[in-house]
């Protein structure tokens, strides 16, 4: 069993098409991306005992939401802790480990719902499932980078696009399954989670079976490294233990944290925000949330592909400057009463949120080389965990405080201005990025 999963067993045989690797990555990412659609479980899990409505003893929606926060925190932590193991073990073993953690996390969540044990929900979805998220997220990073050296941004974007699509599949799938299994005595969540665990296990195993790493020294046919590289693109290698001690790592940490904080604030509050600002119906607000997920998905592919043309530093400058301008214009769209303009502005912001995620691995590769880029990426993802706490907390607290002193449609304006500030901090960090000093490079041995 060990040998089937080992890195050696995944070395591509002659004639293998590298275009089979992106779907392997997407098959894993579109499953673990379910975490973005976890909110569809919030209301059903808050009425497990009452079924038609919450009763005494039922969990609150806030209680349920804690599982989501734990899962995102564990995503970052496990990616950071297991990054080196992932590099050593190869993508197949990691994808299988991710499948075991993520799917058993869903099974434990189903049991938590059946037995109505909140601690088991946190342990299952948050802790065990969260580790599965972290492993699955970084598993295909360096593999894709090695197969697609010419346009690493686009290659990585394809995989991370799957993560954005996870909510688009996970949300409606959970709703349909709960409708199917729901009855007068059950909300159907437990059964829905079990079915999802089974479906996701099949998809993730499918990814693990088809993934391959290139043979040592492989390069695309006819490809030769450019004689003159862009200033920020290195041909050297930096190990993970050295990389995280360099200023470049921490500047990129700030870049990712600010970009994600700005986007996640909108994602988390999207439904109440559009209802407060434009008085749309809850059904239309749900549609708006779906549309944002779509923008998140599309941006991952579009912007990361663009980064192959503009360079990584240039594309992040676009994210921060254009993002800040769009955030500053949002209160104006509300003043105009134009839902369409509002949706376009926030949708564009969300494309850059997704783009930020998808571009960062290629930025890391540019600066530190592809030697241990998966492990370095794992440590950088802690910025995401931090942002997952900062963004929603800022949005929640400020909007609640503002609603006490002003009409609800104006309560979000100061938040948008704050987001402009966060993006400016990210812009400064990005502008400070310089090539990694030669003393940090791994010495070449004969």
């Amino acid at each position, binding site marked *: 069993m060990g040998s089937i999963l080992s890195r050696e067993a995944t070395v591509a045989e002659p004639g293998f*098409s590298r275009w089979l690797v992106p779907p392997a990555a997407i098959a894993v990412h579109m499953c673990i991306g379910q975490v973005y659609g976890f909110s569809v479980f919030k209301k059903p899990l808050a009425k497990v005992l009452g079924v038609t409505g919450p009763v005494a003893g039922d969990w609150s929606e806030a209680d349920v939401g804690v599982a989501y926060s734990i899962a995102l925190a564990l995503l970052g932590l496990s990616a950071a802790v297991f990054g080196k193991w992932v590099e050593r073990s190869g993508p197949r073993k990691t994808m299988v480990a991710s499948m075991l953690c993520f799917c058993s996390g869903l099974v434990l969540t189903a049991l938590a719902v059946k037995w109505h044990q909140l601690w088991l929900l946190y342990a299952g979805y948050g802790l065990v499932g969260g580790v599965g998220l972290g492993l699955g997220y970084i598993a295909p990073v360096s593999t894709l980078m090695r197969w697609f050296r010419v346009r690493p941004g686009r290659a990585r974007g394809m995989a991370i696009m*799957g993560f954005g699509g996870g909510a*688009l599949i996970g949300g409606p799938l959970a709703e349909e399954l709960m409708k199917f299994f729901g009855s007068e005595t059950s909300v159907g969540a437990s059964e829905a989670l079990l079915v999802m665990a089974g479906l996701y296990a099949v*998809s993730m195993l499918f990814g693990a079976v088809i993934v391959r790493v290139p043979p040592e020294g492989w390069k695309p046919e006819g490809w030769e490294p450019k004689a003159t590289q862009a200033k920020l693109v290195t041909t050297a290698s930096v190990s993970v233990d050295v990389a995280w001690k360099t200023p470049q790592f921490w500047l990129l940490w700030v870049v990712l944290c600010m970009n994600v904080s700005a986007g996640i604030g909108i994602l988390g509050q999207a439904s109440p925000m559009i209802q407060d600002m434009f*008085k749309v119906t809850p059904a239309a607000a749900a*549609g*708006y949330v*779906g549309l944002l997920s779509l923008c998140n998905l599309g941006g991952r592919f579009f912007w990361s592909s663009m980064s192959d043309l503009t360079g990584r530093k240039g594309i992040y400058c676009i994210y921060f400057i254009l993002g800040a301008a769009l955030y500053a214009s949002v209160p104006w769209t509300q003043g105009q009463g134009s839902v369409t303009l509002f949706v376009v502005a926030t949708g564009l912001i969300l494309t850059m949120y997704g783009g930020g995620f998808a571009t960062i691995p290629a930025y890391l590769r540019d600066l530190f080389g592809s030697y241990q880029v998966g492990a370095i990426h794992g440590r950088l993802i802690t910025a995401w965990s931090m942002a997952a706490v900062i963004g929603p907390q800022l949005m929640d607290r400020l909007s609640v405080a503002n609603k006490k002193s002003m009409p609800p*449609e104006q309560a979000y304006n100061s938040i948008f201005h704050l987001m402009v500030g966060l993006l400016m901090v990210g812009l400064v960090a990005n502008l400070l990025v310089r090539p990694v000093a030669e003393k940090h490079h791994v010495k070449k041995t004969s």
Partner: protein
Amino acid sequence: MNPTKMKVILIWLMVVVPLGWGVMQSVKKAMPLFQGSAAAGKP
């Protein structure tokens, strides 16, 4: 058709079909936003 190309297309379909289903669901849900019925009242 070349069997390798066929395999690539089939495997891509395995991931594109569920993603496409998710995209369609989101677009369907979002349609009311751009129709008059979305507004419950002027802000």
